[in-house]
């Protein structure tokens, strides 16, 4: 017994226990050697990753680099392993079958000072590589966004500067023109304010804590529709100008109520704006089953858009048609951010001249709420 107790009082670790420890690690721990003819071969390879790939010591003992990593992979690996055998420790990442692995080969020197063999470990870093890729994408998006924001804010500023300068220099401009200039200045300033409000909304949609509750989307859609009607009473004029709303009853979502409201305000607000010149305008809010999932659908019979640019609609400031329709170009980017916060998705579709369709879902939770045992009706 005494021989198995180290000075510290802790038990010695047996060879079998050590092997067991290594086999429990999620990675690969390896040892390899180099023959005078340059052949690099393995003498040890253990760990859960080695087991997963069927390359434990028992399976690969004595096998060469080329046998272990067939195809082009061995060429890249050889370079790094050669360096390790020269005494240089080099970390590197390689890709195999869409997964990424980080290698840490370390030279071990014998008593003569020469590299006797190389040990190291291999860890899977697929999640890190993917996170980095997403981060790069997001950064590029952010940069494009900043560029667009700057341009969109510069335009109204340019107009304000033109008009200020015109009023300053044009003392002889008649009263009507001066009045028109002032009116335009007010309108442009309001639009800048709307743009900034939109940007704050977009930012809020990304920042606020998500609190899912049972949301009565039908009731919410009716409220949004009422608000639109009240803000723009002129639309009620004339028998074929009034919007016919069709809101399916009892649409429920497991969602953040505040964000769901912003989402509906944007989608219904767009449908409202874009049916402005449509005879007998109709806006519909319904649910559809698609790909085994319940999607909420906002459909209008406005002018629609070219379906080829559907994805661009969700990029902030990529306004597709700004000739006649006022808008900040941020609404659909906000919608996208809201559905993404819910782990959901949004799609746009259209037939030019016949209308637009926006479909969204708010994550995997609907099914659970649809089958709630208490059978509670929405408020």
């Amino acid at each position, binding site marked *: 017994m005494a021989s198995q107790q180290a000075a510290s009082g802790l038990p010695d670790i047996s060879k079998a226990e050590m092997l067991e420890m290594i086999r429990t690690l999620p990675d690969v721990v390896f040892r390899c050697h180099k023959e005078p003819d340059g052949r690099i071969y393995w003498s040890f390879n253990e760990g859960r990753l080695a087991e997963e790939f069927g390359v434990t010591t028992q399976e690969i003992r004595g096998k060469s680099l080329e046998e272990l990593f067939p195809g082009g992979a061995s060429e890249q690996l050889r370079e790094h392993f050669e360096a390790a055998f020269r005494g240089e420790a080099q970390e590197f990442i390689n890709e195999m079958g869409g997964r990424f692995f980080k290698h840490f080969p370390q030279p071990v020197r014998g008593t003569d000072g020469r590299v006797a063999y190389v040990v190291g470990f291999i860890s899977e870093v697929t999640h890190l590589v993917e996170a980095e890729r997403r981060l790069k994408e997001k950064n590029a998006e952010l940069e494009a966004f900043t560029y667009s924001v700057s341009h969109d804010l510069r335009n109204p500023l*340019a107009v304000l500067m033109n008009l200020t300068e015109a009023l300053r220099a044009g003392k002889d401009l008649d009263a009507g023109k001066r009045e028109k200039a002032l009116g335009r200045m007010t309108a442009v300033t309001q639009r800048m304010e709307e743009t900034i409000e939109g940007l704050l909304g977009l930012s809020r949609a990304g920042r606020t804590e998500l609190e899912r509750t049972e949301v009565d989307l039908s009731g919410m859609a009716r409220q949004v529709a009422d608000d639109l009607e009240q803000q723009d009473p002129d639309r009620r004029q004339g028998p074929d100008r009034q919007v016919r709303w069709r809101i399916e009853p009892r649409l429920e979502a497991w969602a953040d109520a505040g964000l769901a409201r912003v989402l509906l305000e944007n989608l219904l607000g767009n449908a409202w704006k874009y049916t402005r010149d449509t005879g007998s305008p109709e806006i519909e809010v319904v649910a559809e089953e698609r790909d085994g999932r319940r999607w909420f659908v906002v459909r209008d019979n406005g002018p629609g858009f070219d379906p080829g640019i559907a994805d661009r609609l969700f990029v902030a400031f990529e306004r597709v048609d700004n000739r006649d329709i006022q808008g900040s170009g941020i609404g659909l980017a906000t919608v996208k951010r809201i559905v993404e916060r819910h782990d959901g998705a949004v799609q746009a579709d259209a037939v030019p001249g016949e209308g637009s369709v926006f479909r969204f879902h708010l994550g995997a939770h609907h099914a659970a709420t649809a089958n709630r045992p208490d059978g509670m009706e929405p408020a």
Partner: protein
Amino acid sequence: MTRVLVADDDDDVRESTLLLLEAYGHEAHAVDDAAGVVEAARGLRPDVLLQDVTMPGLDDLPGLVRAVREAVPGVRVILFTGREEAEELAAQARVDGVVRKPCDMDALERAMGS
């Protein structure tokens, strides 16, 4: 007094530029779509065309500039732009000048040669 044709699809930019030009004592006219530029130029025979570079339907800026020059020999064509890459566009389209939005009236007067 210079007769200027402003081609810009943005209502605010177009109208405010017209007013600015008028305030500076010029005769200013406007056209709001790319397809109408040559015809408007032919009718008005402006001294200067102030041409926005991002109008809908404007796919071939050098072509448009050539057509305007054919219709109105001697017209000065000035690009009106908020974009940074304007110099390259100006070189391609062989125009007489570039004015950045917002419109600096001194720069515009210089470009118009007035």
